[in-house]
């Protein structure tokens, strides 16, 4: 179930990321470069499923992002693996309210950018570091999308529970 959910989430996120990039060609690249849907999925899976799933999904999502982007193949994979592991460990060790989880999404975006920048400084002769506004935009966008995803998940779960309650009460009446 976890595997199916992760695979489906990654597939949908990759598809939407490509659509977003294509829209970026038409409407300007600002939004397209700020949003990283694969990262959002990594953090979401990590929060829900723990460090093992978080880092494996992070690695796969990173390699997918590297496949779409230029530059060294594997930079995003390392960054997303670390983020997947870190987000899950934070969730395990700190008791967080649902609303505060948004900060985990924001922190994950920041850590991902830092890891990529660090690896570029270590490995590339002329590192291309993202500007501060673009980092902030990515942090804000990731947090907003994380909030949206958590909200949707909450509604789906409460809807599912309500449907099950109604079904049970109908069965009892019979």
């Amino acid at each position: 179930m976890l595997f199916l959910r992760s695979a489906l989430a990654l597939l949908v996120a990759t598809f939407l990321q490509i659509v977003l990039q294509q829209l970026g060609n038409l409407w300007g690249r600002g939004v397209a470069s700020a949003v990283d849907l694969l990262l959002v999925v990594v953090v979401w899976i990590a929060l829900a499923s723990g460090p093992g799933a978080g880092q494996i999904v992070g690695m796969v999502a990173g390699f997918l992002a590297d496949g779409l982007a230029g530059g060294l193949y594997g930079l995003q994979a390392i960054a997303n693996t670390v983020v997947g592991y870190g987000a899950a460990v934070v969730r395990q060790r700190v008791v967080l309210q649902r609303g505060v989880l948004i900060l985990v999404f924001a922190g994950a975006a920041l850590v991902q950018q830092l890891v990529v920048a660090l690896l570029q400084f270590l490995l590339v002769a002329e590192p291309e570091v993202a500007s501060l506004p673009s980092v902030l935009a990515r942090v804000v966008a990731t947090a907003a999308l994380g909030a949206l995803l958590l909200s949707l998940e909450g509604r789906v779960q409460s809807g599912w529970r309500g449907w099950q309650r109604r079904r049970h009460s109908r069965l009892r009446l019979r």
Partner: protein
Amino acid sequence: MSGRQARWLLVVLLIGEFVVLSRQLATTESGPSLLERMTVRALGPLAHAVTGAEGQLSGFVERRRRSRTLREENRRLQQRVAEMERELLRRQSVELDFQRLAAAVRYSREASRDLQVGDVVYLDHASARRSILVAIGGGAEVGQTVVDASGVVGRVVVASGRYAKVQLVTDPASAVGAMLERSRRQGVARGAGAGTLRLEYVPSTAEVRVGDRVVSAGIDGIYPRGLPLGTVEEVTPGNDLFLRIRLRPAVDFGLLDTVYVLPPVERPFEEGGAPDALP
């Protein structure tokens, strides 16, 4: 999974990823890894489908929008065809003159070679426009030059099936042997990020003007000679030896749609080693 197991898994995954990274850094001749080629092959069709759907939609909207002006455009194009037919006749006579003169001096030139047409299916925005994914009917090989009607786009760095990843000339890791068309002064055009290029190793004594065209020099064994790279946008004194020259690329990377893949550049000394020393 216990915390200890998760930590071990993290270590194993990171080591694996560093191995993938280090294989690229160890040698530039090793080519893309199997994993990278598989990723490009998997993502190519997805990007192609999205681009196709977007193209259909925008094509429909565009056709609706332009239906009123089609008749006027048709008339204008017919005039243009007539002009071009006249121009073609003139050029055919020039060609005949050229052949006659070439025969007289026994001059021969390389026959024009076939181009492959590629559709751009994905343009990477997130990392300062450094690469594109291209669908090419007959596939491509690593190292082939990619151009469009305006000039050099880049070169193929990953080829997998009918999809290829192209490193743009504006990628900071890209370097092209270049020369100023007017003065024939040679240098190296490197990607400067943010969609621009810079021309390096041009001596401070060289005369360079804003607006000078820069073309590929054909000295790097990758890009053929004479392809437009860009125009000089700014010239400032650099260090003591070389000028600092910023170029505006000839290609508008935001408008890339169809590109052309040139045949691989023949390297005469590659197969049989270096030629014998001249007498």
